């Protein structure tokens, strides 16, 4: 393989990761059909693999790919005009009067292109789609993962995932989910829905729901890339900045969460020199910015992700200030009254007031159906009972936690704790 081929292939891979959403979003506006647009974009990347080794990597790879994909789309659309009349097409607003059928490549359509990525994101993360479908579509269409990769990320079969994606695309066109950035009035609520999807993508990567690996770095990296992009496009919303900070601060500990033997290391015992201190510095600056901007909004309190990021920031301190954490959890519980937050608050309480009061705080959660199969509730209860010396009860709780956890490193940790009782 020649050096030119190696360079070109690396450039195509890089453009795949950085420009996929940009190229696809600009092409969807021509095809008004997601499948056809995907096909054209895949063709454009294949053409890049063929041309770039000989012709050199273009100065603006994204622009090159977009032009090739759009031209291919225009060809197909013109050829199949009669067939297309029978398809339900995506509802696309006219953008500044631009007509993709008549504008030549010299037209400054680039000016509207960042918006196109947002259109694609808001279409993929429309609340009329099931949340699993929103995540799958986002990974497929925004991050450019193959269906097989999306299937692996969520531990389902490829056929199941393909069916899920097809069903979601069909609903978008048939139900008329528009290819559009929501109006100013709807934007905050719809932005929350997008952040929800990216956060779910991140948490699925941070602690894999099952399997041999504690985490899935590929999913975390995609979620981080996506949040950085959102922060560029929607950064005026402090919650977007808050989520970016949360991901950076949480993932900064990636290198220290397992020891050399692959065993889980608790936060308090982690080797802090192995934390990513650049990510921590960036995350801390972002969380301060998010909190400051939230408080500037009249009658507005910091949102859920900004508060979660503030909590993650406290955890990256030299020592952990549990009183500050308890205060932040109280604020978060008011903003986001979730039983999972109440559980985490109880952990903080166990370090300020002791395991007894924390155990009392868990009591109402034990009958909450939303936590009925939540392994961390049993694991937390087990730890509190262990600290209180109530060993037979702790044993039962550890056994229950083991039944509810399918992540192997977490299971090994719980089994070790159970053994040591």
């Amino acid at each position: 393989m020649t050096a030119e081929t190696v360079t070109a292939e690396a450039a195509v891979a890089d453009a795949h990761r950085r420009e996929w959403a940009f190229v696809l979003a600009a092409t969807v506006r021509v095809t008004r059909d997601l499948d056809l647009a995907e096909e054209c974009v895949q063709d454009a990347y294949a053409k890049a693999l063929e041309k770039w080794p000989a012709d050199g990597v273009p100065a603006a790879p994204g622009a090159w790919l977009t032009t090739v994909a759009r031209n291919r789309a225009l060809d197909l659309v013109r050829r199949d005009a009669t067939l297309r009349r029978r398809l339900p097409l995506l509802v696309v607003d006219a953008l500044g009067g631009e007509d993709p059928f008549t504008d030549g490549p010299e037209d400054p359509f680039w000016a509207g292109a960042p918006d196109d990525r947002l259109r694609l994101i808001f279409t993929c993360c429309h609340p009329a789609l099931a949340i699993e479908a929103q995540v799958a579509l986002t990974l497929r269409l925004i991050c450019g993962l193959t269906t097989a990769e999306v299937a692996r990320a969520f531990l389902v079969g490829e056929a199941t995932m393909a069916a899920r994606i097809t069903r979601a695309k069909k609903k978008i066109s048939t139900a008329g989910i528009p290819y559009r950035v929501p109006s100013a009035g709807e934007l905050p609520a719809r932005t929350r829905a997008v952040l929800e999807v990216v956060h779910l993508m991140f948490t699925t990567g941070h602690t894999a729901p099952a399997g041999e690996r504690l985490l899935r770095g590929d999913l975390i990296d995609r979620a981080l890339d996506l949040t950085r992009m959102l922060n560029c496009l929607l950064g005026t919303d402090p919650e977007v900045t808050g989520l970016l900070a949360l991901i950076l601060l949480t993932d900064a500990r990636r290198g220290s969460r397992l020891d050399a033997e692959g065993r889980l290391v608790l936060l308090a015992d982690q080797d802090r020199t192995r934390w990513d201190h650049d990510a921590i510095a960036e995350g801390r600056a972002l969380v301060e910015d998010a909190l400051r901007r939230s408080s500037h909004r009249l009658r507005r309190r910091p949102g859920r992700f900004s508060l979660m990021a503030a909590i993650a920031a406290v955890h990256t301190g030299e020592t952990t200030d549990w009183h500050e954490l308890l205060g932040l959890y109280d604020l978060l519980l008011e903003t986001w009254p979730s039983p999972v937050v109440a559980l985490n608050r109880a952990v903080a309480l166990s370090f300020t007031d002791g395991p007894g009061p924390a155990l009392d705080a868990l009591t109402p959660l034990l009958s909450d159906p939303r936590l009925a199969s939540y392994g961390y509730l049993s694991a937390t209860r087990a730890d509190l009972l262990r600290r209180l010396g109530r060993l037979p009860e702790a044993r039962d709780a550890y056994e229950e936690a083991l039944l509810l956890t399918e992540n192997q490193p977490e299971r090994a940790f719980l089994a070790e704790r159970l053994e040591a009782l």
Partner: protein
Amino acid sequence: MSQYLILIYDDEAAWDSADERSSADMLEGHYAFGARHEKDVVGANALQPTATATSVRPDGSGGFTITDGPFVETKEALGGYYLVEAPDLDAAIAMARQIPVFSGGLEIRPILVHTTTAGTGGGNRP
């Protein structure tokens, strides 16, 4: 433009036990919705309660079984509908939000446009 059927599901018991004031408010809400969307509403009706419903099912041997009651028994029953025209689902959702309900909710279904008569179907977008 597409057509959507907005189905109204509500608790019939809430209708039955509603006092005069809240029944009047509910009707007022429907009149206001109809007036605001006069151009978009293609058709609308309220249904008699499910106690008046009759279900008809093929019995598998060429005949039919007739039974008293709705096809599916649910706490929130289909009580009425609006057939509306809207440019997209977001617009249909925005309309549905303005339809008054007691404790139930609304279901939005896009109307199927038959493609066998391409070019003549009213709902086909260019």
